[in-house]
């Protein structure tokens, strides 16, 4: 049995934590939060590229480090802990993973090296309005290799160079790579619950679109991409949830009320014990997801769903109850609780809500347990 980070992976994770403690302090996150003109921290992005993290899981032949997915999960956990204000998920978990899993050799050669260096920022453009996007509702379409339609909201869409877009072609849904800098695209930054991450409305009017993966299978491809994304996001959520528990603990140990430290009150202790229980359930499910992702196991759909459900639940609970433990201070702008509260919403919404993943999980279980 070897169901944990290895010593090398732990070393990488420790190094990542030190690096982010130095380069991604709360002040750096708040720099993006408080500046409406910035959707990410470009300096941190360059530094992360120099560390090789953007290409951690990209093969060496395409300019990456050629590490495994578990290493990427270790980095993700630390990025989540630091609420890093960079388009890492959109670029690495979505775009790089999608191109590696479904791209042609030419697409891999053209895109992956530029992701590894930090030249290309990615994004995933599926949503067109409130609610879940379905085949019958999908409006965006590609005709003669040109895309038209509106995607809203697109996480990191305002800073991205290359979008992965769900659109119909000849009446059948497909997934397309669209160069956002090549014309025929308008990107407008929108306000969101989590201003430390960029969000945009992308309007396409004859933008050049290059199909990724099989024609007519757009929704299946998006789901396959999201299975991979879900595991990696679960690690970001887990990192955030653990940090929320630490912050709550630190605060409760220093705060006195009614003549004694509030960390001694059972109402506080049980709340934090509940956080711990949820975080450990999330960690164990996330590790299983990491294993399934790393070896491309047939169990990936259920493992990814379980990882995402547990991590979404843990981060939401820890982020909201951390505010509660901090009391009035927790509701202020200057205490960091809200950075995590916001990020927990961003991470839960960005790749399908937990409710959707629960339905997906049960559908998979039905297939597995069909009599």
């Amino acid at each position, binding site marked *: *049995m*070897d*169901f*944990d*980070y*290895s010593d090398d992976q732990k070393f990488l994770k420790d190094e990542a934590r030190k690096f982010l403690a130095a380069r991604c302090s709360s002040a750096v996150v708040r720099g993006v939060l408080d500046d409406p003109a910035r959707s990410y921290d470009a300096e941190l992005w360059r530094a992360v590229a120099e560390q090789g993290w953007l290409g951690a899981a990209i093969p060496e032949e395409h300019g990456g480090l050629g590490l495994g997915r*578990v290493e990427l999960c270790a980095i993700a956990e630390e990025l989540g802990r630091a609420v890093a204000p960079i388009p890492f998920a959109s670029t690495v978990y979505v775009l790089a993973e999608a191109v590696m899993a479904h791209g042609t050799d030419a697409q891999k050669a053209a895109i992956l090296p530029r992701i590894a260096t930090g030249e290309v920022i990615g994004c995933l453009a599926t949503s067109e309005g409130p609610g879940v996007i379905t085949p019958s509702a999908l409006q965006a379409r590609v005709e003669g290799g040109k895309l038209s339609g509106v995607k809203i909201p697109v996480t990191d869409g305002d800073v991205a160079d290359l979008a992965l877009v769900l659109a119909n072609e000849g009446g059948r849904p497909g997934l397309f790579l669209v160069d956002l800098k090549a014309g025929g695209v308008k990107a407008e930054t929108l306000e969101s619950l989590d201003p430390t991450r960029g969000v945009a409305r992308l309007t396409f009017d004859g933008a050049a679109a290059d199909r990724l993966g099989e024609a007519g299978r757009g929704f299946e491809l998006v789901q396959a991409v999201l299975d991979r994304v879900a595991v990696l996001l679960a690690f970001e959520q887990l990192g955030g949830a653990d940090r929320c*528990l630490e912050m709550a*603990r630190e605060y*409760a*140990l220093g705060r006195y009320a009614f003549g*004694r*430290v509030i*960390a*001694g009150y*059972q109402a*506080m*202790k*049980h709340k*934090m*014990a*509940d956080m*711990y*229980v949820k975080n*450990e*359930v*999330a*960690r*164990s*499910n996330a*590790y*299983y997801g*990491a*294993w399934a992702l*790393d*070896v491309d196991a047939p169990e990936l759909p259920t493992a990814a*769903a*379980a990882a995402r*459900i*547990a991590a979404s*639940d843990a981060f939401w609970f820890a982020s909201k109850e951390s505010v509660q433990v901090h009391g009035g201070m927790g509701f202020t702008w200057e205490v960091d609780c809200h950075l995590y509260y916001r990020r927990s919403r961003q991470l839960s919404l960005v790749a399908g809500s937990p*409710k959707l*993943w*629960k*339905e997906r*999980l*049960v559908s998979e*279980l*039905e297939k597995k*347990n069909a*009599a």
Partner: protein
Amino acid sequence: MDFNDSPEEAAYREKARAWLVEAAAAHRAEHGEPKPTTPEHMAAGKAWQARKAAAGYACITWPAAVGGGGGTPIQSVIFSQEEAKAGVSYGYFTIGLGMCVPTVMAFADEAAKQRFVSPAVKGEEIWCQLFSEPAGGSDVAALRTRAVRDGDDWIINGQKVWTTGAHYSDYGIVLVRTDPDVPKHKGLTMFWIDMRDPAVECRPIHQMSGGREFNEVYFTDLRAKDSQRLGGVGDGWKVALVTLMNERLAVGGSAGPDYRRVMELARGLSGANGPVLKDAAFREKLADWYVNSQGLKFTRFRTMTALSRGQTPGPESSIGKIIAANQMQDLANTAVEAQGEYGILVDPALAPMEAAFQQSLMWAPGLRIAGGTDEILKNIIAERVLGLPGDVRVDKDVAFKDMPTGR
């Protein structure tokens, strides 16, 4: 990250499995499959334990000199997994070998160690643990059973409760009050006692589930020699903490019917809009149960990983019972509600799945209390894992005899 045994672990598993196949077949040929709680079942359990001890598979982590297997914690876990798969296991020895006998080994005199350890390993004698009392459940140190010195003897009077296996145990370790004039933790002392002594009386407890699996134990002028003392006079609390630390690594599965069983049930039940399995609210719950079950399973794997690497496992296994017990209750109640008015029936001949969910519903409240209530377990996580301060102890500096007791 993988689920594979190391080459040494795989070799051990293979050896254990091969032994189990043969041993289980021989055991069944001799004893059949007797019904639980019958004398035949007890006899079969003792025979199985003896067979394991002879092969070095009883108390695997204990030294061979005392009858153990001289093995490692991961070998012990591997054997338990394989034993569960082989379908032969008996619960009679868990508490004795997991908690009582290690306490005897740590604190008894040489004569008692020579006398008791080996027969216990071989399943010849069964031990029980007598800590809880009507006035000392979560607050065990508030117990009232008195031991008074009389020459070279101690005379014990009082009552214990929820003692697992008291009625079939040969010996027990008992925590008693030897000094009521000092604060509660300081006046306790531990002894081993003979459960067959006529001064010991066991009465079954009628549980809310209808069964009578646990006991009250009464002591009326029970005499124990001073040589039966485990640890110093007044050191009973420290000894008890050692007993509790020896609790075996929890590697068992979760309690009651699992998510697969409830899925199977829901597939065949009709709700207001088709099969219950298609009901959105039910599906959300099902997903949560699956995620929690997987969470516990993989948490056990993380514990095993630490053992496999020769490390001390982290505190993560402390989440197990809180989740398992609450999930058992929620799952059972949902399954019973899904049966509609019919859910009220408890006859295994009528209720779906032999009334497994109705039984589970009535057992779950006990599981949320036994071996540490939800609330105490959360305190333990908060204090020992998260390092939060203990609660205010209003009885800390008060002599036991002056403590308020209520009714």
